[in-house]
């Protein structure tokens, strides 16, 4: 999360809204957002509705959910999907920013 916070301005410049969903409740989200001054949209999802919709992987051995990232363009199309296989399996900001540049320059039709 700190990684994304660090480059948030660069995401914003590229018309990217960062939306973070997680299984914690609203109170935990609010506290975490305040403590870390996070500029993202924070979506508490204690019933796993969005998590299930997007199939966030559950690693039974580690008894937790693995991180996942989905880049959705302005037309609502998923342009990049990454399901982590471990907690540290997160694409770099540079990788995501390069993809955003590609998406923004591809002139995908906006519907």
């Amino acid at each position, binding site marked *: *999360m700190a990684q*994304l916070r660090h480059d948030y301005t660069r*995401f914003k410049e*590229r*018309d*990217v*809204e*960062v*939306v*973070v*969903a*997680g*299984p*914690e409740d*609203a109170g*935990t*989200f*609010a506290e*975490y957002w305040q403590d870390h001054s996070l500029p*993202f*949209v*924070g*979506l*508490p*999802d204690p019933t796993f*509705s*969005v*998590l*299930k*919709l*997007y*199939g*966030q*992987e*559950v690693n039974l051995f580690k008894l*937790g*959910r*693995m*991180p*996942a*990232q*989905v*880049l*959705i*363009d*302005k*037309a*609502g*199309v*998923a*342009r990049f*999907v990454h*399901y982590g296989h471990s*907690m540290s399996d997160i694409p770099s900001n540079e990788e*995501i920013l390069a993809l*955003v540049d590609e*998406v*923004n320059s591809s002139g995908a039709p*906006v*519907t």
Partner: protein
Amino acid sequence: MPRVSLNQIAPDFSLPDFAGNTVSLSDFRGRRNVLLVFNRTFR
């Protein structure tokens, strides 16, 4: 378990954010790209 397909319309959702404002993926359609991050835990 379902997964999101690349280059297909991403499934829409509506959920209140932690401040109680409803956020829908479709709200961003035509305006912003969205990086949807599934966080495991804050702890």
